């Protein structure tokens, strides 16, 4: 499964990069979906199949579709792509990429200490059963609160998205 992991990781990184830099909203979204599917693959490979399935169903399936809907509604076409291309000139890249690179460098430096001992992941599988047991056991309150969070999102989105003139 190591190969699957590294392959999926490569796909995830590349497609994310494409998604972040693509001027076309629809293309970017599709790349993002690919990236999410690749991350789902990563989840499978490190022994978290339930998370992988949720990633596909909810993230790629539901949330991204929401984005696609909005892109459709706003009817972002050629003009947007041209505009994005104009905004993505090389000067605009300097600061953001420098900052992100420094952050990445720091994270790698912290996470990959020279000579530090390695911990392995993916020996065992934590399936839906274990997750479910935990979710409706000690984390019961978190589930209830998550429902409240969704309710808040519902009310806020309902109010903010309304047409009223």
């Amino acid at each position: 499964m190591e190969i699957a992991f590294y392959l999926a990781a490569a796909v995830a990184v590349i497609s994310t990069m494409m998604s972040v830099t693509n001027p076309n909203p629809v293309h970017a979204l599709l790349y993002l979906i690919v990236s999410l599917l690749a991350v789902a693959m990563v989840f499978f490979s490190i022994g978290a199949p339930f998370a992988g399935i949720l990633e596909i169903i909810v993230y790629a399936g539901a949330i991204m579709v929401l984005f696609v809907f909005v892109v459709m509604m706003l009817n972002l076409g050629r003009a947007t792509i041209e505009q994005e291309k104009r905004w993505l000139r090389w000067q605009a890249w300097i600061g953001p990429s420098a900052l992100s690179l420094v952050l990445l460098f720091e994270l790698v430096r912290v996470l990959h200490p020279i000579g530090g001992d390695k911990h392995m992941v993916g020996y065992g599988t934590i399936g839906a059963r274990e997750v479910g047991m935990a979710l409706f056991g000690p984390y019961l309150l978190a589930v209830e609160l998550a429902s409240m969070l969704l309710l808040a999102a519902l009310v806020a989105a309902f109010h903010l998205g309304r047409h009223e003139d």
Partner: protein
Amino acid sequence: MNGVSAIPLEHALILSGILFSLGLLGILLRRNILFVLMSIEVMMNGAALAFVAAGSRWGAADGQIMFILILTLAAAEASVGLALVLQIYRRFNTLDTDAASEMKG
């Protein structure tokens, strides 16, 4: 999936770090609010991956629970954010964040 594989935790975490940084890059780079929201999803996803990988190291379900909670947040934030995008497009006739910067000083 049968769990015979052994991937160093550090590699998984570094992958999540890369995704996280890419998300940050997107937020810093893009002026279009829609892309900014997408980049936020990428960042969230990176953090979620880190949780799942960490949970996998300890053989605990907690990592995936956190993943589920993050998923909830991502959905909630996306819905509110997109509703706001629609409203902003209506009022400002653009999705350019720089255009929506009337308050300063």
